[in-house]
């Protein structure tokens, strides 16, 4: 249906600005005004001609949203007045915005196409865009090059803290969806020196991890690796990256951050660091039972995170509980040369990284210890035989960083198409 209307009232003022906008009419027009959503802004548009109102009312009924092209004018910076309204398209049903409730992850994920229409989620995505832009700019300055990540491989990262890998079939052979691109980082850093990927990772998290509010089945990792680097080099780089992203977000989107997280303070590098052993003691002193050589429990990690007011490092995790690709500490092989960056206030881990094992015999021994099928790792074992450079690197969770910067309660608010743990009908 097409309605073309011209507003013909006599103007006593000079029209200073006339814009054409494409927006969704979200309220039933009444004499006086109606509401239009344009991008992340909802504006009240005045309308004076009762005929325009009548024609609009015929289109905008039953709560359906109507996409319209409007010619609007601003008089001396005052109200926005519709001069001409043209209906472009009309929805069939009223949008069920009441389902866009992040405290109900299944309904929220199913309605992600609706959430992104709302100013709140558009602002979050804009901030995420600045985070990605800032990270890319920083890494470019540091001499890293961006590579495009693979999506499937014969074997992905087996060290997933209780999550499962997803499998698929390619020409009759079992493949895995990338749960992390660790092996690809090692071979590319070996060839190119400093590399990074913005990679999608898929992990079937236990459904109960929905309760942590910080797990997603499909998430995005800024994955970087540098040949010849040490864990100290990477921790310094990680600190500068986090602080830089924070300042860039405040610079470019200060008003959005003020709305979501008015108390945000960008952390000053260098960040505090504690060893895994100290973290275990701390978790216990905070009332969270924690094994000596296992992983920190989700609750333990959260308790420690709440104990700090700035991001901090946990270093030297037990080698038995972590991936085969970490380098054991030559001084004490029970622990790795690795690190996690923990965000304060219960936001938890955002960076996981370390120095990599690059020697064939050592990797083979670790894979055998884990009982992995070696044929799935054949290509990587071949690469190790040819020779890989010692390297270090880390992965930074983009959705988790977005959640922290904007102080979001749920990580599934920090992505356009979330898949929270345990949810099966998300798009």
């Amino acid at each position, binding site marked *: 249906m097409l309605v073309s209307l011209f507003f013909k009232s006599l103007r006593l003022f000079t029209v*200073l600005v006339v814009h054409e906008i494409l927006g969704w009419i979200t309220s039933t027009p009444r004499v006086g005004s109606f509401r239009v959503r344009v991008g992340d802004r909802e504006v009240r548009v005045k309308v004076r001609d009762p005929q325009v109102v009548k024609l609009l009312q015929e289109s905008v009924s039953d709560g359906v949203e109507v996409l319209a092209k409007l010619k609007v004018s601003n008089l*001396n*910076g005052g109200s926005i007045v519709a001069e001409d309204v043209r209906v472009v398209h009309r929805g069939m049903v009223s949008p069920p915005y009441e389902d866009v409730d992040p405290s109900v992850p299944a309904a929220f994920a199913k309605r992600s196409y609706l959430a992104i229409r709302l100013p709140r989620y558009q602002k979050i995505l804009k901030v995420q865009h600045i985070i990605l832009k800032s990270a890319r700019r920083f890494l470019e300055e540091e001499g890293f090059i961006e590579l495009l990540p693979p999506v499937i491989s014969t074997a992905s990262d087996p060290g997933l803290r209780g999550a499962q890998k997803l499998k698929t079939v390619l020409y009759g052979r079992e493949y895995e969806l990338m749960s992390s691109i660790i092996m690809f980082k090692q071979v590319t850093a070996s060839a190119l020196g400093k590399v990074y990927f913005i990679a999608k990772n898929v992990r079937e998290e236990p459904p109960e991890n929905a309760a942590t509010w910080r797990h997603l089945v499909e998430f995005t990792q800024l994955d970087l690796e540098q040949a010849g680097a040490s864990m100290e080099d990477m921790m310094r780089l990680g600190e500068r990256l986090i*602080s*830089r992203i*924070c*300042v*860039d977000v*405040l*610079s*470019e989107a*200060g*008003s959005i*951050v*003020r709305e979501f997280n*008015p108390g*945000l*303070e*960008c*952390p*000053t590098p260098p960040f505090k660091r504690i060893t895994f052993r100290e973290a275990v003691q701390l978790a216990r002193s905070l009332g969270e039972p924690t094994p000596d050589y296992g992983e920190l429990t989700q609750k333990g990690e959260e308790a420690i995170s709440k104990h700090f007011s700035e991001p901090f490092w946990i270093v030297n995790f037990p080698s038995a509980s972590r991936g085969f690709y970490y380098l054991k500490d030559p001084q004490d092989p029970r622990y790795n040369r690795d690190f996690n960056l923990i965000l304060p206030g219960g936001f938890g881990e955002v960076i996981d990284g370390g120095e990599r094992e690059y020697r064939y015999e050592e990797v083979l021994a670790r894979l055998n210890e884990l009982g992995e099928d070696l044929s799935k790792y054949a290509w990587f074992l071949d690469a190790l035989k040819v020779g890989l450079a010692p390297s270090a690197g880390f992965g930074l969770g983009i959705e988790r960083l977005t959640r922290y910067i904007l102080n979001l309660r749920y990580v599934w608010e920090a992505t356009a198409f979330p898949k929270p743990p345990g949810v099966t009908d998300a798009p």
Partner: protein
Amino acid sequence: MDELDVKIIKALQENARLKASELARILKRPRSTILQRMEKLKDEGVILGYSAVVNPWKLGYNYLAYIMLRIRRGIYARLDQVQIAKKILEDTSTRKDLPYVEEASIVTGTYDIMLKVWIHDWAELSKFLLNYLSKIEEVASTETFMVLQKLPEKPKPIPPRGDIIEQGK
């Protein structure tokens, strides 16, 4: 400005604590001439003042940043860019919760104002961006450039133009 003026300026840029009598001895001119010239250079606004050159890094400033501001123009803006620059300079000189803005330059190009900002820590910078700059209605957007290294460490005196020509010969 003649050759004697240039020599006086250069000597004072090297050491502003030189007395007129010492300058007279170095430049082999009567003390009264030197005094008269110094007075003239001050009156004409060539010499703006005599002050200590301090090291900001020793005064509790740990970071230096250049912050670029894009200013909203038109009917919504109450203040123009010069007024905004003045306001920022004044506020940052009087308020203890803000970093110190040494200079605010109105510039051509993508941005309108360039601030040279001395900062104690990132929390102070965060507050400046979040609770000060982004609250100025006329500021449409900002971009922050952290200084990794400043060269030279001690501010370089600006030589009189004639001196440059002389050196070029």
